């Protein structure tokens, strides 16, 4: 039974680490209602600055901490000033995407400077261990706890009793009113970002020392777990963030104790979803709050969509349809095949995120469901491939909608977080549900694409197949958008309160959007499975979800032609610029940032 004490202690220790990241997130959310997806990158930057200080400059610990805090804080100030402040009056979705873009850019810069190899970050504290329960803790555990508690306490006092702290709280409550009262809102934002970044940087350094290891993969993990902790604790509440972090650590620890290590992350994300569904305000924040102020302003950037003349569309169709007849290398065809498959995913996402306003960050999960369904049906039950793919689409529509439905009651950034978590959960279930999915071994020997008994070998036939399927789905989507359902989708996106007042059931139409979109994505996943002949839980991942989102933004949210154009651009161009391979993700990040800043309506405009 003493093991339970050990599990508890371990949970608290890990929870400590999560709390550190969560506090920074809570601070920023409290002021600007923004989930800062780049917090993990600042954490990473702090760790590497710490490495330079400790290993290269050999500074003593207090100096190291001050150095890291200062430099990381400056990075935070720069991010706020140039990455986020220009978006102040922009549409609601802009800052969310901007922080994602910033995280790409920061992560890649670190990787380019320091190389992707993990490195050791020695702690400069004496190597003493204290016996606690069955295990031991060391000075670093205590330091991390101390930093966590102290910063939470200091922040609490700062917000309560200092002038700038009051300004921060006023801005958090009502930005416009605060401005009218003479609060320099820009300075407040800056201060908050600086503090959060300094804290984030120091956290990264301490955790790096704790594990004696830093590498560029730290960033995403930190962001994910930090967001979970913050949302669970209560978005915007600093004490809530600490409590949420500790709770997350405990839940993971007990989950491992009861079910085994591979269920660890599953528990984390299930905790998140449960909290979002049952108590979206968070566990440690009062649930009794005034109803939200009516939200004015639109969600997407209002714009006049670029109307492509029908003759231009016909020409483009003809060119792409006839392309394989020309002496084009199969490499170009393969690239375009990828573009068509991504195009289907983008069609699905532009419908859901653009037309209906549900910015899903876990859309790759729909690919996975479709892929596995199609693969397993054609392998185990000998379904003809064409039928299997359609079944993949239907399963994705049904199961995908069912899984995403808990997020229907959520609004704004919470939808994105929930869908991100659901995406991760699907991936983890695929990994663990071995009797069906073969777990990490994956599904091998998936039959190749075939239609009515004829195998589609060779790039041209696969090209035509995927092109035709994509065009059909696009045409169906255009028809859907022109119908009363399309009108209803857009009304819900623009103002769901008014939409409800006129009889539009949000659940019904969001479900329809995901059913249609799920079908498109599932078909895409199914085709991919038969194309690759081997899939496992890593084949369809979060990076693709983010790429799909970038494509959709580039093309114009809700814009069908834009989804296809964006897909060709963002899938095709990197192939053209293979030389710039190391910079590819950096370029994605910059593209996202520039789009969001200068042309949020995308190339072809939102619809």
């Amino acid at each position: 039974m003493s093991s339970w004490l050990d599990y508890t202690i371990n949970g608290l220790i890990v929870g400590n680490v999560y709390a550190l990241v969560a506090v920074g997130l809570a601070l920023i959310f409290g002021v600007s209602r923004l989930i800062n997806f780049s917090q993990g990158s600042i954490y990473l930057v702090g760790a590497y600055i710490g490495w330079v200080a400790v290993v290269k400059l050999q500074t003593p610990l207090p100096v190291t901490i001050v150095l890291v805090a200062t430099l990381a804080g400056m990075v935070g100030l720069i991010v706020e000033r140039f990455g986020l402040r220009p978006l102040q009056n922009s549409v609601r979705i802009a800052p969310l995407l901007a922080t994602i873009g910033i995280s790409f850019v920061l992560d890649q810069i670190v990787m380019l400077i320091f190389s992707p190899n993990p490195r050791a970050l020695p702690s400069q504290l004496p190597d003493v261990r204290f016996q606690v329960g069955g295990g031991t803790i060391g000075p670093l555990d205590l330091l991390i706890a101390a930093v966590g508690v102290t910063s939470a306490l200091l922040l609490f006092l700062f917000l309560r009793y200092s002038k700038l702290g009051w300004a921060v709280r006023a801005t958090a409550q009502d930005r416009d009113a605060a401005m009218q009262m003479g609060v320099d809102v820009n300075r407040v934002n800056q201060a908050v970002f600086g503090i959060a970044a300094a804290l984030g940087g120091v956290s990264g350094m301490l955790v790096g020392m704790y594990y004696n290891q830093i590498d560029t993969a730290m960033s995403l993990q930190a962001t994910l777990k930090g967001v979970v902790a913050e949302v669970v604790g209560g978005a915007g509440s600093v004490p809530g963030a600490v409590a949420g972090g500790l709770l997350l650590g405990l839940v993971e620890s007990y989950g491992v104790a009861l079910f085994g290590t591979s269920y660890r992350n599953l528990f984390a994300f299930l905790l998140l979803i449960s909290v979002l569904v049952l108590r979206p305000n968070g566990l440690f924040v009062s649930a009794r709050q005034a109803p939200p102020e009516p939200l004015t302003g639109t969600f997407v950037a209002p714009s006049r969509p670029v109307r492509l003349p029908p003759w231009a569309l016909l020409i483009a169709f003809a060119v792409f349809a006839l392309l394989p007849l020309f002496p084009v290398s199969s490499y170009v065809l393969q690239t375009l095949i990828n573009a068509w498959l991504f195009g289907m995913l983008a069609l699905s996402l532009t419908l859901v995120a653009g037309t209906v306003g549900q910015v899903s960050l876990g859309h790759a999960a729909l690919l996975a469901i479709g892929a596995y369904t199609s693969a397993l049906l054609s392998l185990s039950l000998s379904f003809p491939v064409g039928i299997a793919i359609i079944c993949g689409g239907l399963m994705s529509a049904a199961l995908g909608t069912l899984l995403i439905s808990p997020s229907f009651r959520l609004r704004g950034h919470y939808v994105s977080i929930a869908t991100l978590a659901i995406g991760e959960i699907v991936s983890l279930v695929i990994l663990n549900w071995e009797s069906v999915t073969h777990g990490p071994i994956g599904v091998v020997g998936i039959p190749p694409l075939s239609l009515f008994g004829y195998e589609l070998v060779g790039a041209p036939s696969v090209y035509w197949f995927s092109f035709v399927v994509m065009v059909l789905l696009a045409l169906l989507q255009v028809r859907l958008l022109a119908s009363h359902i399309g009108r209803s989708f857009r009304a819900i996106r623009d103002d769901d309160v008014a939409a409800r007042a006129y009889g539009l059931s949000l659940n019904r139409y969001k479900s329809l959007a995901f059913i249609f979109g799920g079908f498109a994505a599932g078909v895409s996943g199914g085709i991919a499975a038969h194309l690759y002949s081997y899939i496992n839980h890593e084949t369809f991942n979060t990076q693709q979800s983010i790429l799909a989102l970038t494509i959709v933004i580039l093309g114009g949210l809700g814009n069908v032609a834009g989804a296809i154009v964006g897909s060709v651009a963002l899938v095709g161009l990197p192939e053209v610029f293979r030389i710039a391979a190391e910079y590819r993700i950096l370029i994605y990040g910059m593209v996202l940032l520039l789009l969001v800043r200068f042309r949020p309506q995308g190339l072809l405009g939102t619809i």
Partner: protein
Amino acid sequence: MSNIDRRSLVKGSFAAIVAGAMVSRTALADASEPILLGVSGPLTGPNAQYGAQWKQGFDLALDEIHAAGGINGRKLAYNFEDSQSDPRQSVAIAQKFVSDPRIVMELGDFSSPASMAASPIYQRAGLVQFGFTNSHPDFTKGGDFMWSTSVSQADEQPLLALYAVRHLGLKKLAVLHQNTDWGRTSRDYFVNAAKGYGADVVITEGYIADDRDFRSTLVRVRDANPDGLILISYYSDGALIARQARQVGLKQTICAASSVYSPKFLELGGEAVEDVHLGTRYFPQDPRPEVRKFIDGFKAKYGGQEPDAFNAYAYDAMNMAAAVLRIGGTDRRAIRDAFAKVHDVPMVIFGSATFDVESRRIKGAMNAELVIRKGQFTLWDGKPT
């Protein structure tokens, strides 16, 4: 001569020039252009570090190959395309390689999904796909153009089991492994072999490679009362586990698979990895001439840095490719046939390598039993820890 007008003359000369250029290109290609290999692997993304290690191994091998006169007088070069170990990209790269007539063989990819997704393309087009770190047992079943020098876990894990159970005398084992296709397959082979040697596997725990925190896992392990921990890990996660095992109060012997063999394991693990046992294919003081050549060459080229497992796989792969090309020339089909003909190629991993034509793999990897003493990899002297 009568009906030839200027237009057709121009057209005709143009065609002749182009044809001439193409002919001379291939003719020139034979003489002064290097033989080109295509490499599909991660230069960016989560596995970028391994791609970088590949390059180190390749470049070292190439230096030696050229110093020895190249391939029948011609130089050898590789074209490394970044797949990020993503099947989407490895498939596109495969199309690119097969349509480029200069590419005679492909090396890679890093992970099994990326490799196996591309196999149908290589097989149909008739370009050898030579894998050397993708360890899925079904990789070579993709077709007769799929060849692999990655050590089959069916060979490696029994060696580790022998070390742990018979030589170290461990009877109750806790196995921690990465929850990937490689980790799983390895775990299954290890458990079978260990049981065969009479040991009891009291607990196995699969973890996600990116995990940092293993303390709770280790409490579970502790409660199962093992007398030894087996790590089927890469060096970063291996180091983390070793450190945290000591922090949680586990004092059992740790025995790890060769995948932790890297100077990084020592750097990241620090004191915690002292006395960790591991089975590897080679070690720093390995007297074999091919190993000495490799280690000394690596240190000379890379500023004293010690090589690790992935450097060695890549180095060996390049050398094997060179050996195959010497026999098979530059025709893609002949190269495939040459894989079956090549024999006794000196390799760090296998000693003297010959392909088993049935499985298109190499059997009989070298084995050394090491232990970490005073922060160095040393040959185990047979004494208990």
